[in-house]
């Protein structure tokens, strides 16, 4: 039951111009599980994703991915090792078509044999492959971001606020999709503000405040932890 961690982050720090945005984050993610990453605005959630996915180099600390040292590796290298992410504000290749967006990633990812149509279908973009990405609405663009990430066949997926901006009727589908991905053995780290959505996809959460991990455990326990409560109410 206890698999070795897919992603292990220890003592991760990152400063910008001397100001620490991450000040020692520890986190563990196992294959097949979804972990919610919570914290008030500015607590370092997105910075953590940026550092883990190679957008920024960490100032210190260590990232281990599937048993490899992945600290400070370039994004394209991490993709090959089996990690990918989505963006809070989606960043599809706007002049390319939906299908091309996925094809680029398939081509350079870990498993070029996947069917791009199936990935799009999975992400609720079936039949829209020929549209230019810039013609999609923001919710569709988020799902395209996700589809593009999935096309590289990641073992570890960092999802940055997928639910924000989605219509009510889309939320259930999105939650179902994340659970499916985990069920297939992937490890997911989900940044989310909507507690209801978090509850739908996971029980285990990690809480950040001011760049450090202040809590790791079940959502239930978190809501009773005085420190966590104080941070959220204070924010």
């Amino acid at each position, binding site marked *: 039951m206890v698999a070795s961690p897919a992603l292990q982050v220890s003592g991760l720090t990152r400063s910008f111009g001397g100001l620490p945005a991450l000040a020692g984050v520890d986190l563990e993610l196992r294959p097949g599980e979804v972990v919610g990453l919570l914290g008030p605005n500015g607590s370092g959630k997105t910075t953590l994703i940026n550092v883990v996915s190679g957008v920024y180099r960490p100032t210190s600390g260590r990232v281990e991915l599937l048993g490899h040292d992945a600290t400070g590796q370039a994004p394209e290298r991490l993709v090959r090792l089996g990690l990918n992410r989505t963006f809070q504000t989606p960043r599809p290749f706007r002049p*390319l078509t939906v299908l091309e967006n996925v*094809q680029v990633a398939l*081509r350079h990812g870990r498993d070029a044999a996947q069917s791009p149509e199936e990935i799009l279908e999975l992400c609720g973009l079936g039949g829209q*492959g020929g549209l230019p990405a810039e013609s999609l609405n923001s919710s569709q663009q988020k799902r395209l971001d996700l589809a593009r990430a999935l096309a*590289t066949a990641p073992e570890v997926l960092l999802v940055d606020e997928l639910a924000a901006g989605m219509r009510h009727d889309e939320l259930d589908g999105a939650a179902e999709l994340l659970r499916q991905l985990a069920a297939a053995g992937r490890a997911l780290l989900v940044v989310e503000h909507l507690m209801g959505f978090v509850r739908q996809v996971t029980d285990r959460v990690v809480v950040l405040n001011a760049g450090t991990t202040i809590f790791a455990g079940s959502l239930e326990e978190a809501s009773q932890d005085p420190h966590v409560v104080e941070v959220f109410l204070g924010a």
Partner: protein
Amino acid sequence: MSSVAQRLREGAGAVGRRPRRQMVGDVLLVVVPPAGFLVASLVYNNQLLLLTMMVYVALAQGLNVIFGFTGYLPFGYVGFFGAGAYGTALSVHFLHAPIALAVLLGGLAGLLVAALLSPLLRLTGAYFAIASLAAAEALYYLISNPQLTAVTNGPYGVNLASVYNSGAAYLAAVVLVGVAMLCVVWVRRSHFGMSLRAIRADPLAARLAGVNVVRARTFAWLISATLAGLAGAIYAWAVSVFYPEAVFDLSISVFAIVFALFGGVGTVLGPLLGAVILYGVYNYIGVSQPQDFQLIYGVLIVLIVLFLPNGLLSIRLRRLWRGR
């Protein structure tokens, strides 16, 4: 709605299962322009004008590969042209290479200079543009330096009379146009080109799609420089005697950029049309209005930018959409 539908078709055909009709179109794009120049030489005997036009087609397309698909504008593009010209001259003089090989070595010289300069790709925008210009100027001052007379003949120029053959040089330029068109068609339609467009749209997202951005850009840079090197090699062969300032003339860069932008970069046909039409107009004014040559050409370019800021091919799209 119609525009979306149209893009849909274009997009669906871009990569992979490509409709046969588009394949036919692509083959024609590669074959027809060189054939056109071949035919043109039969009815019009200012062959050097046609050859220079072909050289500009190749330069505009080479520029298209690096600028149109990655957004890097090398102001010093002429540096590769000059490197190609001198690469060929040195191959003839020192290696006694047959001219066909010497021309290829000229292309190789362009490629090598580009490989040496590939760290410049770390720069962006105007910084890159000017750094490449500085590289071209430095190369010119190096090659024309009297202290290097034993190698490059310094400021005294090059004489390739021993291999001069105007007909063969013309054919080589015809082939060059085909090669340039092929490169751009390939870049436009291939997975590689798709990656380049993805990089141009969003470099970080492209890296997260697994694209090795540095490698892809460098590859485009090398293709682009090789085309310019070949163009310089063939031009050197065709004119056969020249001073260094003739093949490192900054206006060659500027013309290639203006032609490519006028036609529309990032497209297959734009730079071809841009070079053929604008260079044709340039020569027409030069012959018909020699006394006001510069003034008319300058005014024309200003008017083009003001009234056709997105390139010649933008008219085509507008017309088509309206027509449908």
